[in-house]
């Protein structure tokens, strides 16, 4: 029998790239206009947290943690609808333009803050990567700061005798590992899809939204001062990297020979004829 597990899951709100809203004609994204959604990778992390809770003792609980502007609270409500027990958001203007190192610092301070109230983590789940930052760095950087056991690219796991037995993706295959708690696990997108909202979760969110007192208890909003994070280690000052230049690369080509406006036989015939040497070299005899 496993002990009660204290589980945290780190989730992020990202621009919604599935819709056309906020996508400029040149392909760049207008973050202000674009819709917002839960980072798709973090949905897998949320399912992993829910699965882990089911493996723990009866008083196991999950807290979702995010860092972002106030509207990101939406994904915390989404988490509660799926049966996550509590949530906390770190929101502070001074966090703008944080790179991964600054983000990992701020999130680890937030985790320290919630741990001081709710008890030390046994498990922290992260998505493999975000669709906007897309670095897969924040999880391991938090591990380094908090000295947690690290398992990345996890596809499935079990908790037995208070040890994690996990399967993870490696180059050209997979690896099974046994690891000690407390552990931070990043979840690959080959993990089970997030299940539907629960009826209880949805009702709970309705109640939380109505009642300010419970809201404070279940969806905590904190800033840098609350979690005792140093300003100099966040945002621009705390970020060792900057973006020094950007440029478009949509227009380099232009040498494409177009084949159009004819019958399919003719179109294919043109391409096959022009390239017949190459095609013959690799075609099956």
């Amino acid at each position, binding site marked *: 029998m496993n002990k009660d597990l204290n589980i945290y899951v780190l989730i992020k709100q990202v621009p919604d790239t599935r819709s056309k809203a906020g996508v400029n004609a040149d392909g760049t994204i207008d973050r202000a206009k674009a819709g917002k959604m839960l980072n798709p990778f973090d949905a897998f992390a949320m399912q992993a947290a829910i699965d882990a809770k089911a493996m723990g003792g009866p008083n196991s609980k999950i807290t979702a943690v995010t860092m972002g502007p106030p509207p990101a609270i939406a994904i915390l409500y989404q988490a509660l609808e799926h049966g996550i027990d509590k949530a906390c958001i770190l929101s502070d203007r001074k966090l703008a333009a944080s790179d991964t*190192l600054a983000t990992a610092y701020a999130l680890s301070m937030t985790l320290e803050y919630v741990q001081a109230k709710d008890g030390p983590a046994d498990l922290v789940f992260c998505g493999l990567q975000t669709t906007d930052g*897309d670095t897969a760095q924040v999880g391991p950087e938090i591990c380094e700061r908090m000295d947690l056991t690290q398992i990345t690219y996890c596809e499935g796991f079990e908790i037995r005798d208070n040890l994690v037995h996990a399967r993870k993706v490696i180059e050209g295959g997979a690896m099974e*590992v046994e690891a000690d708690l407390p552990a931070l696990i990043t979840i690959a997108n080959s993990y089970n899809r997030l299940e539907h909202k629960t009826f209880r979760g949805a009702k709970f969110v309705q109640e939380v939204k109505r009642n300010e007192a419970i809201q404070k208890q279940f969806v905590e909003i904190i800033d840098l001062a609350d979690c005792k994070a140093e300003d100099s280690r966040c945002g*621009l000052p705390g970020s060792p990297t900057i973006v020094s230049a950007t*440029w478009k690369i949509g227009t380099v080509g232009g040498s494409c020979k177009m084949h159009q406006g004819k019958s399919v036989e003719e*179109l294919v*015939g043109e391409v096959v004829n022009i390239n017949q040497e190459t095609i013959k070299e690799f075609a099956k005899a």
Partner: protein
Amino acid sequence: MAKEVLVVAEQVDGIIANVTLELLGEGKKLAHKLDAPLSCFILGHNIDSQVDRVIAAGADKVYVADHPELAEYKTLPYRRVIIDEINTWSTPPHTMLMGSTTSGRDLAPRIAAYFETGLTADTIELDIGPYEHKAGVDKSKIGYFPECLYANRPSFGESLKARILGPWKDPQMATIRPGVFPLPEMVSKPRSEAAKIKNVEVKLEESDHRVRISKILREAGSKIDITEADVIIAGGFGLGSIEGFKLLQELANCFENSVVAASRKAVDLGWITYPYQVGQTGKTVRPKIYIACGISGALQHRVGMQKSDLIIAINKDPDAAIFSFAHHGIVGDLFHVIPEMISQIKASKKEPAFA
């Protein structure tokens, strides 16, 4: 020991991975610009034979950590050995490069966080150049830096490329996906004159054994490795469903050493599995022939295949981005174009040689 360009090697079953050789090839150019030695850190067990390979690929210095616990990649032991060694240096390396593989992406952020330094993920271009930081929120960053690591990567805005740099602190770090840079020419040299070799002491602590490997399952055979194919038939969202891949497979069957691959959208929809994904977060390929079917040509896809020798794109939208960089563009419905292509390729084989 100032200003080294350090490549951390990746090995599988005691053989240095190609990505390491590719990074040494590119690292050599950076080392030239910095007038610094190119060094390579190899961790593993019974890996002495690999020292010659990294020297042949251009390493001027080799750090070798040989220990049974290092035979397979494990986060904590690898992290410990590399950090301990660098901490004995008077200054850390100027630049540190790793493969953007499952293990490189596991290890690089640990080292970056330890040194509290910057790390650019999934870089597609590297260079050394100057940077002047004029004003900003943080006055302590102001200054002129003649030798920064430039790491360019596609940014979230789909058609933008961003240069990321962080000259304030060394090591300046980047991860690079396999296949982005070409393999360097291998020139064997006798060890004595070629390179300095340092055997690195391996001292692990109790806490480094928190993750224990119980089983390794590596897929045998290279069928799944799309980076090795001569001909790639790639499909995207335009295929409409998983069924579309059967048609692609039929076209692939017309060629030798060919394979079917996909855009991320097709992978995310579950039409095909991740090892077949081409692009920034998939694999970088450079086959002799790349036929893109129903793929729009987003930047993140393009960076994974633009170096293919011959790119033929099939798309029903004449304004699709893929037509800006393919060599031949066929505007049409892939469900009509591909069957026609299959029959023409088959027919062209049957023609007598003199026809």
